[in-house]
């Protein structure tokens, strides 16, 4: 198994935020993790990357048990998280931000190639590469955050709500780029509020509700599932065709 979570439990003091969830990602897949606010999506990603302490359960990645490892060890293995909410280094320039993404890399030529790749995906970043990250627009900062994640040359990328707060056009662009990144060989675990878009690009999906996985299936199945439609896609039967409207939780 490429990536697997088994029976993961996470407590924040008394709050039982993740209640025994299990999920898998196969090599080359895009897997969507959807759910309402406070369902535990970010908590899942944070426990994978070692930012949050796990109470019980196991996480395996490339046949290795990585449960409880330090974040830098996990990043070193090519499992890179892009945290929620456009976190960037505001005073560093765009280029320095990207270089930070390659913090654990030593191969200068490889870093240069990765940088070119990011600039190909996000031409805007190239124009702005000497500008402090904090002066970018919100959408540009999100691009920078994803670009920085790519600089770690990830094998499996954890994206936490990349479309948050973006205009519809930019949302489409971001999802196109995610598909692009995936087609270049990076597996992706995608957390999203925008269930419509996420499920449309995902091979498989999981629905998380108050710390438990309540539904799983292929992206298409979930898109057409009446319960999902009712809860997350506004219940409108032809919502999937209209391409706009209240797809947000």
């Amino acid at each position, binding site marked *: 198994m490429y990536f697997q979570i088994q029976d993961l439990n996470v407590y924040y003091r008394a709050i039982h935020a993740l209640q025994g969830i299990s999920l898998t990602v196969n090599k080359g897949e895009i897997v969507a993790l959807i759910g309402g606010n406070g369902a535990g999506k970010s908590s899942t990603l944070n426990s994978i990357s070692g930012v949050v302490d796990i109470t019980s359960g196991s996480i395996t990645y490339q046949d290795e048990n990585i449960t409880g490892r330090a*974040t830098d060890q996990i990043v070193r293995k090519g499992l890179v998280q*892009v*945290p929620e909410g456009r976190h960037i*280094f505001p005073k560093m*320039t765009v280029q320095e931000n990207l*270089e*930070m993404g390659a*913090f654990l890399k030593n191969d200068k030529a490889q870093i240069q190639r990765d940088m070119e790749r990011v600039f190909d995906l996000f031409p805007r970043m190239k124009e702005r590469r000497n500008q402090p990250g904090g002066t970018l627009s919100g959408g540009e900062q999100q691009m920078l955050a994803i670009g*920085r994640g790519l600089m770690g040359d990830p094998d499996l990328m954890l994206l936490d709500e990349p479309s948050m707060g973006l205009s519809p056009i930019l949302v489409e662009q971001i999802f196109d780029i995610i598909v692009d990144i995936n087609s270049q060989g990076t597996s992706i675990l995608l957390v999203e509020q925008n269930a419509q878009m996420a499920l449309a690009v995902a091979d498989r999906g999981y629905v998380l509700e108050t710390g438990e996985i309540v539904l799983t299936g292929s992206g298409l199945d979930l898109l057409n599932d009446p319960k999902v439609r009712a809860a997350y896609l506004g219940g409108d039967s032809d919502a999937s065709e209209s391409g706009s409207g209240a797809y947000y939780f």
Partner: protein
Amino acid sequence: MKNTSAVAVRKGVLTAIILIFLQLINMTAALGAMLEKMITSAKSVKSVSPLFYGVIVALVAFFIAFSFIRSLYRPGKPKPTPLYCLGESLVIGLVSGVLIAALNALISTLNANGVKIRTYLDMMAPDAIKTAAFGREIPVMIGIYLALTIAGALLGGLIAWIIKSTGQPANAWAALQRAIAENHTIRFIRRNKIVRILVIIAILIFVFALPFILSPYGISILGLVLIYAVLGLGLNLIVGLSGQLVFGFVAFYAIGAYTFALLTAPKPLGLEFSFPIAFLVALAISGLSGVIVGLPIMNLRGDYLAIVTLGFAEIIRSLVNSNLLADFTGGPQGIKDIGQPRQPGFIESLIGKPMPENIYFLYVIMIFFAVTLYIVYRLQYSRVGRSWEAMREDETVAQACGVATSYYKVLAVIIGAVIAGAAGALYASRNTYIGPGDFVFMVSVNSLAVIVVGGMGSIPGALIGAFIIKGVPELLRDLENYRMVVFGVLLIAMMIIRPEGLLPIRRKKIYAEPDKDLEILKKELKP
């Protein structure tokens, strides 16, 4: 227009309040005396001459009027006419002149009638009252005050108007920087490698000659400033670079100083180690204390280090101050006869006689400062420095990038502690005496002030900051009692004018070209 006139009246009252306040604490006279001393280069001025007293009064009116007229130029508002500017300045001068003259008329009259003003106003001795009245009769005095404030205010308003209306950049600092950047000679020096090296050599020669040029007093001040600069560099690394707040930095300074003192002094331990060995041990022990303080907080987020160091500093101070431990630490009496570095033989053979002790020690401090500077500089622009900076800006992302934040946090504390320990050991050796009184909370505050004033995270800033925090109060000694008042005002003014510190940290500033960017943006925005 009516509105602004009302403001002018208020500014006039403000001027008068400042003047009255200065007079009541007798600072007008002190400032005047300082000015007189500077200009006439008299050794000491017992009582200020009326001329310089008057200049100070006029200067206050000048600055208020100047800043008021300047503030009238705001984007979107019509430019004031010169006549209007002069009118407003006149109002300021008139109002403040009438008020301050009235006060002095009152005081003089009361004084003449035998009322002992001094019982009510501490500083208003008969002499001071006479000085404030310019030694004249009341009507003449009123005239002088009015003339002074009005002349000062008019001049201030006029200069503000000239600066604003001739389109000169009002910000003299910016103008200066631009002039430097555009100056051909300086550009030539910057570009030309040989010239640059020559300039650096000249500066080095000057620096090396400095201990011989300075008076003993100057040597002692410079030594203290450099020790504080080292302290500032260490704290800068923790607070400015890695972004963790430290309130009790004095703890590491004290540990370095005490370790060194105990190892070299004849009492209380009688070890009398040589300078290099004791110095190295002092570094090691202060580094160890950094580990002790750093480890418990390595996995915590937030400003725990500030509290932990604060407590640690208090513990250290109580320990060295305690009578119980006096046999080991010297107790409240402190430690005396602390060891000094021996002069290497070649100095004597080179200049024929041993170098004076204080000059030699200044060289030692300068060398340590240079070494610290080099180390800190290398660290800041290394991988380690980068991770500190990343941590400071956003700990979550730094972690997501693979920075082992816990490790780098503790590392910053340890290196900072070692540098502080070095500063402490130097201080102990230079003074040859230390006691608990040398390691009070104020040292922590001062070292924080050094880096705040100089600019957080900036290496040259630490030197400038140390000079301002430790050097300027000494230069202001002439002001005697008002020294700290003036110093405080200077600090406040500085933080208002340059909130990021005097020499804020420089990032590579190669901004994208706005025009080109705009084109790209326009293209992209087209549907």
